[in-house]
């Protein structure tokens, strides 16, 4: 059995290295780190109002800061992945780029969600999306109307604040904390 001396094709390491470099230079989405939010150019915040996207998981209502959301997409197929925790349902194809689809209902209530709408997070490097039942509204709330949770309250959950919407106290999802939870879970595996 004679081995060909000439290498056929490009090695995996080269391909991966180039891909990571391309990611760094990518103009697709905004360049934001998971640890911080880009506060530039948000006229609502200058006017002391904050935009929130109201969404539902089954019948429960939640909010997420508009600055955390890149896009809402519907109808995409989930491609299941092995070696994942249960709440990572798989990958979705967003414009040819794979995004992780996290089931917040499994994370919050340990119940699988049957839905096909995704809130894609703005952090393009993370490439994370949340599976939701429906996106109800995008509202602007004065900052004073948002009740930020104390550190001790927020420490053990996935929420950073609450707001009043339609006579209801709606928890505001902390996407950074959720991202950190996912990262830690993989680190421990």
């Amino acid at each position: 059995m004679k081995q060909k001396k000439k290498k056929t094709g490009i090695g995996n390491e080269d391909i991966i290295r180039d891909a990571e470099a391309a990611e760094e230079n990518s103009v697709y989405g905004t360049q934001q780190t998971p640890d911080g939010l880009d506060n530039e150019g948000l006229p609502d915040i200058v006017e002391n109002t904050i935009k929130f996207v109201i969404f539902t998981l089954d019948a429960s209502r939640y909010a997420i800061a508009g600055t955390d959301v890149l896009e809402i997409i519907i109808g995409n197929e989930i491609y299941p992945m092995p070696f994942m925790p249960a709440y990572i349902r798989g990958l979705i194809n967003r414009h040819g780029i794979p995004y992780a689809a996290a089931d917040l209902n499994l994370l919050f209530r340990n119940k699988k969600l049957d839905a096909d709408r995704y809130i894609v997070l703005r952090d393009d490097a993370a490439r994370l999306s949340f599976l939701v039942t429906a996106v109800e509204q995008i509202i602007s709330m004065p900052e004073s109307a948002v009740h930020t949770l104390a550190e001790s309250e927020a420490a053990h959950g996935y929420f950073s604040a609450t707001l009043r919407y339609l006579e209801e106290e709606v928890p505001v999802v902390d996407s950074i904390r959720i991202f950190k939870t996912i990262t830690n879970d993989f680190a421990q595996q």
Partner: protein
Amino acid sequence: MKTSKKLFYFFGGSSLLIITAAGIIMYSYVKSTVIKLQESRLEESAGLIIKKISAITDVSIRNSLRSTAHKTEQLVRYYHSQKEAGSISEKEAISVIRKLILSKQYAPVGETGYLAVVKDNGLLYIHPHAEGASITKAVFWPKVEAILSTPEKEGYLEYEWKNPGENEPRTKAAYLTYFEPWKMIIWVSSYKAEFNTLISKDDFREGMMERNEKSSRYSYILDLAGNLIVHPEIEGSNVSGFSFAREMIEKKQGRIEYLWKGKYDNREKKKTAYYGFLSDLNWIVVSGLNESELLSPLIFLKFFIFAGMLIALFVFALSSKFVGRLIEKKIEAFMHLFKAAGEGNLTHEYIAESTPAMRDEIDDMGTVFNVFMRDYRDVLFGLQKITNKIIELIQALSASSQETSSTANQQAAAVKEIVSTMEDVNSLSKSIEKKISEVTVITDNTKTIVSNGFSKVTASLDKMSEINSANQTTIDGIRYLSEKIDNIWDIVNLINGIADQTKIIAFNAELEASAAGEAGKNFQIVATEIRRLADGTVRSTNEIKERITEIQQSSDRLILTSEEGTEKIRQGNDLTKEINELFKTISGSAEISNESTQSISKSIRQQGGTFEQILIAIRQISEGVDNIAAATSETAGAADSLGEVSENLEKIVSRYVLEAPAGSGENPSEART
């Protein structure tokens, strides 16, 4: 007690006993041999002395007799010459000779001895007692003839003779010479015992005297009266008063022991003597010595035996101590091995002697022990593996049994339900049979009623047909309307979907606008308008949906009603027709129904019987399943018990150390001798 001590006491003691016994036996044997030797020397000595004295006695007697015979022959020859000379006559010569020979003073021959002249024809010519008698018949005559046949015509002879008046014959000695001219045998004889005066003691005394300070060996002679003829110390004394002397005189020959204090003895000492009888002289010759001298050769023997015993005892003690210690060391090595094994450590081994010559059974046992321990360790290894495997299998079996038991229980429950259902069916069949019987009765009544209603129904048939046609037209129109509404519904859903998507696009636009900041402000307005449009669209479509729903519901109700009406008409029509047909059928089948119900009843009874059989079979199955459930429960229980046993076995095996600690780099520790 230590092995070395046991060896010492046992072997030392037994060797001491053996050596002592051997010494005693050897001493006894040697002593008896020495005594025999000494005594045989004594006996021989006595015998020699007796022979010597006999020889001396014989010579003396012979010389004495010959001397007398020659002397007498000279006398006879003288008187013969005188006669030849003519001085005297033969008769006178013979008479003188007779007188001289028979004279005691002439030549005394012992005490009772005498001279005699015998003619060569055996007649006693001159004799003190029996002249003229013939002695040719005497026992000694052949000896006489033998002497006469010799050239010298003289000689010595001995013969047994008893004088008249004597009880026992005695040995008589005689010497003969022959005087040819007168044919005379000159006979000199006497009893030998009468010649003891002729014996010169000095001739044999020297050989008998060994008595001195160093030796108690000597011989002596005593006569039958107890007089000591020859004795180194008390010669001439009479010892007939001593019992030993009397015994010797009585027995004349043998061995005797007696107490005697000799000249050099400070006390009486035991003496051993051998004695013999010199019959010619009636002497008893005795040779003896002190017993202490008899046993003197044994003194060194005693010393050597004793020394040998001590040396042997010492050597045995040393060697038993040494051997015992060797054995003890090896046994201690074994104790160490067994102790370690008792504590659970099976890694120790026995090291045998390196020198093959020094190997013994204990080393062989150690080698075998090592092999045994290796085999035992292998067995325990295998047992460990098997135990672990058994535990795994038992766990699997237990789980499986429990699962099977659970399944069997479920099956048993299911079967019981079946049984219960079958029983219900069975009872139901019976009740149906009863009802069938009732129906049979009813059919008979129905037949009559049917005939009456037949004609009335026919009239309404025609009217119903007309209504039916009108109703159908209405229904068709409504259906057409409904289809159109469905089309609208699809369009509305499509619009709704687009509105939904538009809404999402609006959301996304708004989000992008927010992210764009100041530059996106105008876009924000556009996005808001789009969202409003989408919301409005959604609202409109929702209204349309509501309307369509209402219309649809109305249409549906209308259709339903119409259909119900039509259905009712149709049903009525059909019913009439059916009733018509039914009347025909019923009237025709009234009889049949009766038969049918009976047939049904029969079938139901059969079915009931079949059901009962099925029920019995299912009950048996139920019992079987119960047994299986019980069995699998038992199996599960047995698996649990087996599991406990395996765990106990594992505990027992795990208490043994079968391998040396890993990474120590050492072989299993070994017991050294």
